[in-house]
């Protein structure tokens, strides 16, 4: 479990990173926290010729409020979110989720951008940031562009990112004072990836986004479930059967088949996230 040989270059800033990419021979790859790419290199699942380290770019570590949004540099680390060191657009959702994401040692290095680019449907940020309706800001050799997160995640571990492109920042709308949320992660042990992960954000009356992770190749924005949640006032236990039915509608609309066991577990996490958001 040792990586194949590669050449390493640390970028000073985004332009330098792009230049390092442009001049590279063979395959070049960016590395941020290395908490996903490191193991992949060691298992030789990834064998780039050059690694371009984004970890020393100050601009990527920045987080600031801009009007009704908070903009996070892609290099912001899970632990910084957990510790409440940065502005929080999510009314406590992001810090709470960060605290149960992996282990502290990994949170100390793993980054928001790395997580979104890795695009694991069982990971926290791709799901939670989809529920929060985040937008990613990209820089590439051909210039800059921005993409809504829902359009960024294309498939299992696949995004709309071109090989040369860098996620520079992520902007997230700030929740209003009446917004509510609920979040539930089902995992086999603290620190493990989720087996089911559901987040419900109530932006205002009738405006709900409920997202489910782990069920399909990408995080799923559950339309029927969201509509159901938008239509009820407060939480009633008997709404669980309706949730299960709405979830089945959403899954079949997405062309996803899950067996009875997974369906039961997903319905439970969705219901719990909704209960916390509505109760």
């Amino acid at each position: 479990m040792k990586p194949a040989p590669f050449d390493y270059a640390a970028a000073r800033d985004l332009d330098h990173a792009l230049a390092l990419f442009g001049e590279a021979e063979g395959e070049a790859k960016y590395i941020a926290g290395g908490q996903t790419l490191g193991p992949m290199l060691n298992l030789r699942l990834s064998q780039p010729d050059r690694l371009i380290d984004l970890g020393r770019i100050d601009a990527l570590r920045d987080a600031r409020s801009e009007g009704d949004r908070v903009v996070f540099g892609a290099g912001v680390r899970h632990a910084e979110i957990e510790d409440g060191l940065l502005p929080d657009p999510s009314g406590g959702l992001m810090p709470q989720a960060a605290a149960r994401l992996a282990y502290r040692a990994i949170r100390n290095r793993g980054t928001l951008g790395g997580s979104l680019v890795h695009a694991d449907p069982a990971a926290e940020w791709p799901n939670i940031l989809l529920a929060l309706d985040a937008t990613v800001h990209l820089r590439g050799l051909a210039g800059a562009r921005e993409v809504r997160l829902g359009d960024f995640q294309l498939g299992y571990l696949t995004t709309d990112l071109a090989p040369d492109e860098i996620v520079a920042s992520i902007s997230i709308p700030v929740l209003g004072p009446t917004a509510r949320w609920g979040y539930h992660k089902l995992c086999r042990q603290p620190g493990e990836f989720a087996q089911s992960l559901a987040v419900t954000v109530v932006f205002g009356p009738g405006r709900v986004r409920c997202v489910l992770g782990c069920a399909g190749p990408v995080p799923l924005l559950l339309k029927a479930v969201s509509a159901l949640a938008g239509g009820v006032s407060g939480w009633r236990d008997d709404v669980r059967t309706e949730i299960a039915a709405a979830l089945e509608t959403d899954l079949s609309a997405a062309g996803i088949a899950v067996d009875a066991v997974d369906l039961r577990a997903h319905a439970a996490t969705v219901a719990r996230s909704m209960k916390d958001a509505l109760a």
Partner: protein
Amino acid sequence: MGGEGSGFGIGDAVRRKEDRRHLFGRGQFTADLRIPRLQEVAFLRSPIAHGRIRAIHVPEGLRDRVVLAGDLRGARSIRAVTDAPGFNAADFPLLASDKVLFVGQPVAMCLAPSRAEAEDIAQAIDLEIDELPAVVDMEAAVRPDAPLLHEGWGRNVFLTREFEAGDLERARAEAAVTIERTYRLNRQAGVSMEGRAILAHWDDRLDELVVWNSTQMPHQVRYALALHLDLDEHRIRVVAPDVGGGFGLKNIVYPEEIAVAALAAQVRQPLRWIEDRREHFLASIHCRETLYNVTAFATAEGRLLGVDVTVQVDAGAYATWPNGPNMELGMAIKNVPGPYRLEAYRARGWTAATNKAPIGPYRGVARPGACFCIERTIDEIARAVGREPHEVRMENMVRPDQMPYRSLTNMLYDNGDYAESVRIAADLVDVASVRARQAQGEADGRLIGVGFAAYTEQTAHGCGEWITRGVPIIPGYESCTARLMSDGSLQLLVGIQSHGQGLETTLAQVAHHELGVPFERISVRHGDSALSPFGMGTFASRSMVMAGGAVARASRMLAARIRPIAAQLLQCTPDAITLRDGAAHGPQGSVDFAEIGRVAYVRQEGLPRDAAPTLDVTATYSPEIDTGVFCYSTHAAVVAVDPGTGTVEILDYAVVEDCGTIVNPMIVDGQIVGGVAQGIGNALYEEIPYDTSGQPLATTLADYLLPGAPAIPGIKIAHMCTPAEHTEYGMKGMGEGGAISPPAAIANALRDALADTGAELCETPMTPRRVLAAILAAESRIHAREAAE
């Protein structure tokens, strides 16, 4: 005795001598060694489960860094032959050249100054294999149409066994209750913190092969190397430096190790191979994979009448050295009756060969499965007759007045009060309060339940028992050289290998107890075949009893040599001398051990006329009884299960155990906690599934889940201490036990929690998915019944 009341004798919770170096990061593991000219080895391994090697293309220019089977000279394939009747043997090649039989099987060695470069070489080799259909399922493996792993065997079966005693037909006829179940323990790995490791080099000055090996049994490794290489045994030195856990998986001599040693001797080049985690999951032994089909008969009161069981073991592709896969089956059959009075018992079983990594002994060996089988079944009997499972358990157990009790399977339970251990465990988890809480229901909707599982653990078994197992090496004794130095300090040289058991501490406690040499002036040296007399190593819950016995004997021999010298110096008779506080005391006056040592080594003129100089004795020890001494224990678990997600939390866990006389209570408790943690892994987390083509699906710690600290509850421990009659001080072994009961205790607690749903868990690990599936299956049974009515 010399060490009584000092705080460092038998029974004292002495802090471990070995902790200091580990806490300061100064342990010395094989990977820490620095040797000039060292080359690192990476193995190229088969990516295919079953196939015929067509070609191995080594790129031009790399040929001298790659070693294939044909390049090794004077090294033989491993052939573990056992005396078990009908055993099918097959060579386990050091490097495969013809067929490959499991994913991960070594095919070539690649040499380079660093491991990363060695892996680059491995990656550059092109391995052409014609794939054959893989045999993955143990039940399919033994069908007549299954492809054969070892041509020449008629069936993919290593061995079969049958056993019958008592009148099973009568039990069947008299039974008011009949329970039929299938239980499955899935395959898992040992996952020692340090993987396997070996460094071998030729010492030109001594003209010998020096092998540093992360092993539980350095002398057996030396024996094995002499067996497999063209080298006289006197030219081989095996050193086990610090060993980061073994659990049985380092009680084996593997092809990789013989290949590295052979090549180092052949090319006179220092070589090292450090197993990485992925290789560990691929090619260290696996364990546990067994299938039990059981039918049990009982009276309307829950009295066990008879048990009929079929045991199938999935042993993987090869037999490893020395014991192969034959212990699992025999021990399973022997241990199903457990602590119960059983009058009729029939057992049949076979050990199948499949295209998976070989299995071998792992902490508990076969007994977690046997315990699961009988303990789940006792619970089902109790439920069928409407009684508390722990009460039915107590009534069926062998009683103290029946001791010593010879079980149907010919195990001699020496002493103890089994039912009392259940009673204390029930108190510790407070069954009454669990029942009250269940009646009330949980605010969060979870269901709680309590479950028990008891076992007997045969420990420190001697020669006769091992012969019945048909194994080629009979580890019926241990040895010790005790050396009082010229300054009165003491060295103990022993043939066991301590890798977490704290034997550097406990063996010193024994010598201190016997001789009164101050504890801090006693060192225990182990793990080096050049230093210690031949010993078998550390496994089978044997070292405290066996090596402790050898240390006691050697200490007494030493005392017998010290007394006359002291008597001469003190002008009294030897029998008037007592040894304590680092000195020999006579009726008038004392002489300290430093003076005795000085005389014995450098002032010969002070010795009695007939006393030989030096104070250096060697003793061996075998317990007075061959059938072992039986530790026993009852575990009780209280769990909460979330019926929406299948998640299980352990709320409370209690262990009551009797290992006879306790040498160091802190170390015993540590062994229990560690064993229970592994048992919880077995119960809830650990598994290596294989897909239908024979690819293992858990080969990193991302896929193979170990219990983390939050998964291990605080464990309540209570001791009963019934000294053994046939060992020194009344000690019994206990090292493996903690790992035996947790799967059964937790499964029974889940059964209790889910009683209203009718769901039960009959397979390990009990993952949330399996728990949820059991609940759904029970629900659909209820729906089907309702629809029918």
